[in-house]
């Protein structure tokens, strides 16, 4: 069975003006699709042929890891966003953020800093560790916290392709705007 590009949960223009339709056409239609295609070309004849993406993330290396993790990361990223979203989390996630970071504002600042300062291509993550505590981690390139036994809750893609058409070198502006699209209902349910 081959891997497939999951459907986007919204229209390509639905995240305007924070993320343009053009950016999503490339990001989802070209980059995400290419990772799916590359993975399908790489796994036949390997022990990962029928593996889940999670197994690939935990056990594979090289091109299979890079493409498999990028399929998972992009699906997770796109599913973290929604039109008319943003605001603040509620319920148990809001409580945990307050407990582990002091306040939502402090969490936001720390997560944004992780996203802005990651050098090169990669991802900023909010994760739950083995003790149920929330942490913020940076992962370069295709990195995914599952490999370290951490559970991803939210991510922000800071590969330049995620924002260059809309923000060019101004990654801090992209990260600031990203918060307007975070779908806390989905993120809270993951937590």
């Amino acid at each position, binding site marked *: 069975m081959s891997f497939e590009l999951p459907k986007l949960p919204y229209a390509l223009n639905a995240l305007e003006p924070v993320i343009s339709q053009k950016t999503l056409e*490339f990001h989802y239609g*070209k*980059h995400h699709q*290419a990772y799916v295609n590359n993975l399908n070309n790489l796994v036949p004849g390997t022990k990962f042929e029928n593996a889940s993406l999670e197994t690939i993330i935990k056990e594979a290396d090289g091109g299979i890891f*890079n493409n498999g993790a990028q399929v998972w990361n992009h699906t997770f990223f796109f599913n973290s966003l929604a039109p008319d979203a943003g605001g603040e989390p509620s319920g148990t996630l809001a409580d945990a953020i307050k407990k582990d970071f002091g306040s939502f504002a402090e969490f936001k600042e720390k997560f944004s800093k992780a996203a802005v300062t990651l*050098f*090169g*291509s*990669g991802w900023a993550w909010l994760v739950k560790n083995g003790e149920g505590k929330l942490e913020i981690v940076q992962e*370069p*390139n*295709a990195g995914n916290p599952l490999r370290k036994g951490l559970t991803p809750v939210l991510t922000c893609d800071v*590969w*330049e*392709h995620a924002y*260059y*058409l809309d923000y*060019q*070198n101004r990654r801090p502006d992209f990260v600031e705007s990203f918060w307007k699209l975070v779908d806390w209902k989905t993120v809270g349910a993951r937590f």
Partner: protein
Amino acid sequence: MAFELPKLQYAYDSLEPHIDSKTMEIHHTKHHAAYVNNLNNALAGTGNENKKLEDLMASISSLPAAVRNNGGGHYNHSLFWEIMKPNGGGNPTGDLADAINRYFGSYDKLKETLSNAGLTRFGSGWAWLVVKGSELVVTSTPNQDNPLMDVADVKGTPILGIDVWEHAYYLKYQNRRNEYLSAIWNVLNWEEISRRFKLAIH
């Protein structure tokens, strides 16, 4: 003395259509300028302010990440601007052409090898043609690392570097890094690459 952003020897629009004016302007005035500023900030008060960039690279493993990232960024971009020119391209000549034939078989084979190094560099980084002792080799490095750094897998003197960070090509080529890597050969400055080859070879 603090490091300074070098001036380009050509106009931003003069590498069109291969590299567009907007990309050149942002790449030089924003990305490169930020590396220079951040490098100066990272070195301030450390006693390393007056060292040559090449000397910093040679002992980069003992320096902070900010020096590695921004010092590499400053060195790499400074080289990159110089090995390009308007109406460039064509074929290398003289000793460099001989060396390319000797180590790669032909100029076309070098193009293929170097383009492939750029295409397969996952994430951000650079593809390089490097003088290593008396040899010519192709390699690639992640992020703003380069072959002068003591942390590089292949160490030597870079004479040609191709930036494959997405910011180098995304406005014009988006996900088509392969098209950027085909186009860049049209703007290479072989006189400058030859000059660097002669200085490096021994």
